[in-house]
């Protein structure tokens, strides 16, 4: 026989715990799929490192390279940690931690030798799936993670499968597994309480890329409007009540922030605490220093806004916001802006009540007046113009009208204004006379201040388009706008939009109609050209919105509402009951109902009948052993249960003919004999009763 060494070798080969070819392949694919999206958020050397590790692992599998020794592994691990520290300059924070997880995940691949290691890797893979949500919570991230889960399940399947089967079959099995777990996910999603510090997604990744910063210089907004990115979405019907009050286009001024410091080129925003010294109140009621005065008929707007992350602390609202509610701490500043204490680094939902019927700050403090009248040196011609108005002793309102009339005369609205020099206001007003909204608003504010009227620049968005199903309004970066506010005695702060004087279509119909053909083309370069692509984008944005609204912003309140709707109560024990009961019920269902096997073939009808017959026999205490053939079982029946003997042989014979001789035409005969048998049994039972 064998030398003992040989046989030992053979035995090890037979039932080894080693990672098979199939499993390794699955593992590599699964790991790649799990960490691929993370690569976009992590240091660039990670993908390269992964590639290297994959190559090493394959070489090890082929036996070309040995498994690494302990000191090599230590070296690798230490090297990676040093790399992370160099990349991030610190080890604290979410991103370095995720990177650390990915590094560990990748390095584990070199080390893994047996099935336990594979299981560990797959489990880390599940954590990697969760880590993706730190960076992105979009619908696409969710769909992708479902895909990743399928692959991870497939990997597990391939390992525990005793048979080598086609990858396709394992994918199907994994899909079935995933489908079975989806209802569990659903229950967890609906019922599990959101514990905010634990549940909140840590801030990472997307810092505000597009949007306003705290300063506006000429050209800033005209650059911004070329982006089709969504700034925020507005739902004017947050309660799903019947009457949604939607402001008319000319009222859709979404105030973002007011800029009151001008240095001759840029307008600057001073944060509220810089101005007044007091911190934001967490109370969502109007600022104590506000002086609002109710005036005439007021229209109230109720709306909720889903704001995209823009990395800044301000939020947008219609004039005049009276109340704001959100999970974040939000408050008002004394110039009627909504602010949070922290920068918005993830999509944020908040709800605002605004009203048109209020006067703002009918009285101005001396300090405020001073701030809003300060002008830098320079621009002599503009100063002279303002001086001439002052000399004619025009009232404030008349001054405003005069300035607007000036704009109305010879100015051109354009995305590509000529460059301006040191006296930018002068050059714009008297030479180029071509500009975008920030030019108009800026020079208008300058003129007003020069004429002694408190004025400031406001930036935000103007307009917004309704989604296809008219359920919500989408405001994009291309709706970015700048306008002015002037303080008029007894009327308080009043919005004046000089752009309206130049290009009224901009306000009424949107930027597309206000620009010349050339400019419109420039604007469209950011847009997708083909019409169906555009509709597709719209549809996708629509989906993304629904995802935002229904899934991501689902909170404890919604959960309680759901419980109330379903059970009329929101008691805490209902949550527990639903959680445990629901999942328990599902598991029970999976256990009891043999769900149709998608992968398997349909059983032969004779097979089905025969199984039913076997179940009948089992009920009578005659259990077919798995290894017993039909004939063997029939013989035993003959022996053990004479009552059933009459048909047993015949049934086995027919079954053999049908299944093993392929004579399907005998199926009716088998059915007949089984029916006959049941009938006679019923008769016997009746008699014995």
């Amino acid at each position, binding site marked *: *026989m*064998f030398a003992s060494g040989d*046989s030992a070798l*053979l*035995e090890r*080969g*037979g*039932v080894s715990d080693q990672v098979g070819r199939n499993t390794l392949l699955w593992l590599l694919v699964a790991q790649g799929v799990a960490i691929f999206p993370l690569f976009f958020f992590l240091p660039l050397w990670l993908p390269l490192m992964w590639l290297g590790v994959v190559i090493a692992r394959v070489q090890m599998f082929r036996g070309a390279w040995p498994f690494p020794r302990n000191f090599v592994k230590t070296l690798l691990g230490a090297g990676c940690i040093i790399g992370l520290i160099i990349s991030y300059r610190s080890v604290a924070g979410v991103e370095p931690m995720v990177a650390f997880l990915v590094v560990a995940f990748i390095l584990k691949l070199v080390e893994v030798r047996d099935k336990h290691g594979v299981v560990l890797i797959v489990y880390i893979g599940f954590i990697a799936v969760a880590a993706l949500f730190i960076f992105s919570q979009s619908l696409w991230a969710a769909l992708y993670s479902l895909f990743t889960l399928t692959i991870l399940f497939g990997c597990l399947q391939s390992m525990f499968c*005793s*048979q080598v089967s086609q990858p396709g079959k394992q994918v199907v099995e994994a899909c079935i597994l995933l489908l079975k777990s989806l209802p569990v996910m659903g229950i967890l999603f609906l019922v599990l309480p959101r514990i905010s510090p634990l549940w909140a997604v840590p801030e990472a990744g997307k810092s505000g890329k597009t949007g306003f910063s705290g300063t506006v210089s000429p050209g800033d907004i005209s650059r911004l409007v070329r982006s089709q990115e969504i700034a925020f979405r507005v739902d004017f019907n947050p309660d799903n009540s019947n009457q949604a009050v939607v402001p008319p286009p000319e009222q859709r001024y979404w105030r973002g922030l007011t800029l009151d410091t001008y240095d001759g080129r840029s307008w600057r925003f001073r944060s509220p605490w810089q101005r007044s010294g007091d911190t934001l109140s967490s109370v969502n009621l109007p600022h104590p220093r506000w002086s609002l005065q109710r005036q005439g008929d007021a229209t109230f707007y109720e709306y909720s806004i889903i704001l995209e992350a823009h990395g800044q602390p301000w939020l947008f609202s219609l004039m005049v916001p009276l109340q704001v509610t959100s999970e974040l701490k939000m408050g008002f500043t004394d110039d009627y802006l909504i602010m949070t204490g922290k920068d918005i680094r993830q999509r944020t939902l908040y709800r605002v009540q605004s009203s048109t019927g209020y006067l703002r700050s009918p009285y101005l403090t001396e300090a405020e007046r001073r701030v809003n009248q300060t002008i830098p040196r320079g621009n002599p011609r503009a100063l002279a113009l303002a001086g001439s108005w002052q000399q004619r002793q025009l009232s404030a309102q008349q001054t405003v009208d005069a300035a607007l009339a000036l704009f109305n005369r010879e100015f051109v609205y354009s995305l590509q204004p000529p460059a301006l020099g040191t006296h930018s206001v002068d050059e714009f007003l008297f030479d180029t006379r071509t500009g975008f909204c920030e030019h108009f608003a800026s020079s208008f504010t300058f003129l007003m201040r020069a004429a002694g009227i408190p004025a400031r620049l406001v930036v935000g968005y103007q307009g917004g388009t309704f989604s296809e199903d008219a359920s919500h309004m989408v405001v994009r970066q291309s709706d970015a706008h700048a306008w002015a506010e002037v303080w008029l005695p007894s009327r308080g702060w009043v919005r004046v939009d000089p752009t309206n004087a130049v290009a009224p279509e901009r306000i009424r119909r949107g930027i597309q109609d206000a620009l010349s053909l050339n400019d419109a083309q420039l604007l469209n370069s950011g847009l997708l050209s083909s019409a169906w692509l555009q509709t597709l984008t719209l549809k996708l944005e629509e989906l993304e919105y629904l995802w935002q609204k229904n899934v991501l912003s689902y909170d404890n309140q919604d959960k309680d509402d759901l419980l109330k709707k379903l059970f009329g109560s929101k008691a805490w024990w209902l949550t527990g009951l639903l959680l445990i009961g629901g999942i328990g019920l599902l598991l029970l269902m999976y256990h009891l109902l043999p769900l149709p096997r998608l992968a398997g073939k349909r*059983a*032969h009808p004779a*097979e089905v009948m*025969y*199984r039913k017959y076997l179940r009948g026999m089992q009920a009578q205490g005659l259990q077919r*052993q*798995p*290894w*017993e*053939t*039909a*004939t*063997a079982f029939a013989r035993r029946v003959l022996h053990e249960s004479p009552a059933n003997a009459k048909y047993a042989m015949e049934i086995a014979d027919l079954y*053999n003919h049908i*299944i*093993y*001789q*392929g004579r399907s035409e005998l199926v009716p005969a088998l059915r007949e004999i089984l029916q006959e048998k049941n009938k006679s049994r019923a008769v016997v039972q009746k008699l014995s009763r």
Partner: protein
Amino acid sequence: MRTLIDSVLNSVGTVLLGKEHQVKLALACLFARGHLLIEDLPGMGKTTLAQCLAKVLGLQYERVQFTSDLLPADILGFAIYEREQGSFRFQHGPVFTQVLLADEINRSTPKTQSALLEAMEEAQVSIEGQTRELPEPFFVIATQNPLSQAGTYPLPESQLDRFLMRISLGYPSRSAEQALFNGVDPRRILSDIQPVIDAQQLQEIQNQVQRIKATEQLLDYLQRLVDFTRYDESFSYGLSTRGALAWLRAAKAWAMIAQREYLLPEDLQTVLPAVVGHRVRGIHTHSHSGAPEKPQSILEHLTKSVSVLSN
């Protein structure tokens, strides 16, 4: 056909009393164009069975007693120089026959063993650069003595695979033995036996075996059995593809003998010990003496673990 097979069985049955099952297996092996390995003590009727089969089937018969000094040329043949013609003449060895009894095959060196085994596999012999076809049918019955293994070269697993079946005859039953005591000397009966079928009819039967029907469900059962030997932990190695094919062929021949033109799971189960026994090895069957153990328990484990009905 039915009568032919019946009469073959009857004829052999008159010589080998009470060994119907083994005779049937041997016959099935022959019908399936496979070679047979009989593992038994001397004097159990191995030679009688081989001779009897050859006679009944009207086949040429040769017997080689394997010894440690037996050389390949002793089996295959060799070229001798003829002085009169001044040329070489090939002297055919005993392998050029239809039924070859290789007695105590494990007594010869691996070199000689492999010479025979190659002939078995290829049905041809290459000597002195010339390939010579063996007669058709060519059927080897090899015997092995499981005891007294001193100075033997047991066949390795790879060689065992060349035998379609491995059976052992075992002691005869009481009644059969008594009949032997009272009756005529089997050797005399043997000499009286007349061929029942001829080589052409045998080939016809062998061709028919190939046409036995095996349905999807049956192949599924076979597949699951084979897979079990490969992936269950109690097997140190599983059945090869050649082994699986051999199993199917042997079962078909068995169905043929049972006068059925289709396969039943019973056929697979019946030939299982003879076909699978020498092709697999359990993880715990360490043999200290070197004698191949009969892995009965592992075969039973195999049969009992795999359900006949697909799940």
